[in-house]
């Protein structure tokens, strides 16, 4: 009995933490979706389903959702493709392997704000490093951040560059858990390197792949820093992400109820998408 009580005492700090910083804010924001609040007013009138109605008729919300999806559709394949190639390369007995592993991981631990500023300069149309190189090669400068067509793909590239190292680490761990005997056996049967890669490496990496796809989808839906710093959501809202739209509603328009509504809908979308992905990818998982 005494031991049991000690156990409760031990978990108490975490339970308190969970209630105060997780459960309460979540419940509060669900409650907020039915109210109109400007963050400071002592009165918080009940508005029923008004916020949800507004959401359904809000073109800008759907635009920001579409922008975010566009980001994810470019960002994830780019990120996974590059991370896989790098992970396989870094898994070879290269010279200076430790250095490269560190170098690719560096952007992950660097502040997103710093990286956004850096890339905003590199991608600047008239003054940027990349357009400078393009022009030296006789090509036209590209309005990376100031055209509706290019802004989101540019952000998707910057985000992929920043997070690459993280996914490389996951893939490296996955690669190292593949038993060597499988490759040896395949070699004896006369398999080529390419066949080994597609028949052994890729299927055996399935659990890692599942993790990476789900993590980067969730990450993608939470896109904020890059558009906030690099484009301000522009030009013409073409890089406005859902989270940035939440931020704008909450802290610029002080429309907490509506911001909470978008937040809740976004959370439900992420939950739904993650569950579908899990179903689809789990089918082939080999543990």
């Amino acid at each position, binding site marked *: 009995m005494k031991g049991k009580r000690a156990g409760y005492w031990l978990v108490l700090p975490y339970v308190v933490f969970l209630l105060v910083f997780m459960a309460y804010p979540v419940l509060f924001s669900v409650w907020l979706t039915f109210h109109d609040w400007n*963050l400071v007013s002592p009165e918080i009138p009940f508005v029923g389903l008004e916020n949800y109605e507004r959401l359904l008729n809000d073109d800008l919300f759907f635009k920001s959702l579409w922008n975010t999806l566009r980001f994810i559709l470019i960002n994830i394949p780019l990120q996974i493709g590059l991370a896989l190639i790098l992970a396989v390369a870094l898994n070879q007995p290269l010279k200076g392997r430790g250095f490269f592993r560190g170098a690719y991981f560096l952007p992950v631990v660097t502040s997103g704000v710093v990286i956004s500023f850096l890339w905003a300069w590199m991608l600047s149309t*008239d003054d940027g490093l990349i357009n400078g190189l393009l022009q030296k090669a006789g090509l036209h400068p590209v309005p990376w951040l100031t055209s509706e067509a290019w802004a989101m793909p540019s952000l998707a590239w910057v985000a992929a560059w920043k997070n690459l190292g993280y996914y490389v680490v996951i893939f490296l761990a996955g690669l190292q858990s593949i038993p060597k005997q499988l490759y040896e056996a395949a070699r004896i049967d006369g398999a080529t390197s390419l066949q080994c890669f597609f028949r052994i490496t890729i299927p055996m990496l399935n659990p890692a792949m599942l993790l990476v796809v789900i993590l980067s989808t969730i990450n993608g839906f939470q896109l904020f820093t890059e558009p906030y710093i690099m484009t301000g959501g522009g030009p013409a809202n073409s890089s406005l992400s859902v989270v940035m739209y939440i931020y704008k509603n909450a802290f610029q328009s002080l429309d907490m109820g509506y911001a909470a509504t978008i937040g809740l809908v976004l959370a439900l979308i992420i939950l739904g998408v993650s569950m579908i992905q899990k179903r689809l990818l789990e089918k082939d998982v080999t543990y």
Partner: protein
Amino acid sequence: MLLLQVGCTSGGKDNGKVELTYWPAANPVEVAFAKEVVKEWNAKHPNIQVKMQPLPASRSAEEVLLTSIAGGTTPDVCSNINPGAIGQFVEAGGLLPIDSIDGAMEEILKRTPKETVEAFKSKDGHLYQVPWKGNPIMILYNKQHFREVGLNPDQPGLDTYSKFLAAARKLTRDTNGDGKPDIWAIAPNVEQTWWQRFFDFYPWYVAATEGKTLLKGGKADFNNPKGLQVMQFFRTLFRQKIAPQSTFKENLFAQGKVSMVITGPWALADIKKQAPKMEVGVMSIPVPDNMTGKLRITYGDPKNIAIFRSTRYPKEAWEFTKFLISKQNDVKFLKMTQQIPFRKDLAEDSSVQQYLDQNPVLGAFVRQAPYTRAIDDSDKITDVFDALSLEYQQAAVMGKKDPRKALSDAEKKVNQILQRSR
């Protein structure tokens, strides 16, 4: 009712000693100024001690103040109040009406022109902010660049749109022959962020209309011929490639990569630091061609002083505020921060005159200061600017939308937003 509340909360002093908290803006020069003022005040008033605490700089001042009103942790006095946010503070019940304090209005009207004070009154007729400083937005230019292209650096005379554009075409130059400009005439920020319009559309609009703001009678008021001229001016600027459609994160003017910059007097100190040898000139915001010779008005980027409702000592808080806006401190403020107090007789002071003679560019800002407008007092003003900003970007910066359509779309959107606000 209000007075009653104030009367109830003020009163008891702890051991006969009053302690006030004062939040200035967190930029280094203003903090240095606040330190000196508070030190002098505390030495003179042993019974009313002021504790100074700079507003946290990491977030926007408005956000910090709103959170502190919500949390009940407001200071007694704050001197970084953006009139554009005052509607929200008032709605939240956070501010003390200054006109309820005995003698305050007389004191304020002695210092500041009546029209300026009137402009800061809230919808309910009360004054919740002591007009403090207004930093007129003007155009700084690089005299050397002007000389190089044959413009008179002392009297450039770019006061109308066509003169300005003609000069700007000359100033945009390809110096190394690679076919792209290395020096731009001007580089207004192309970002969609709402307050960036304080530096392009808005001051131009205020100048063109001789002082109209965006809203009138709770409705959008900018869809008119003048608004159209302003939109077309910026469209021409970007379309003729006089201004780059780029986002820059550095001070291009100080680096000599652009010849003109739209800014306030606060920029002078930084330019002096980054480019000590640059000869800087200053001019007013240009106006449409048919307006030559008329009075120029510009956006004033004002910051005011407020006393919070939470104070237990409104009388003492006002006494300190009065000291803060005394002539002696206004002069000190101008010299220390290169920002401009709302004081009528400032330029008449002999030490100020001498100082401005040595700093003629700052002098021009001081002379412009009475001719400024703030932004409309509306709790939806950020959304209003946001809507306008989007259309400005599409019509002027990207040139993809007809300016007429852009203005009427912005008008429609703004009226929708204003209707939604309760």
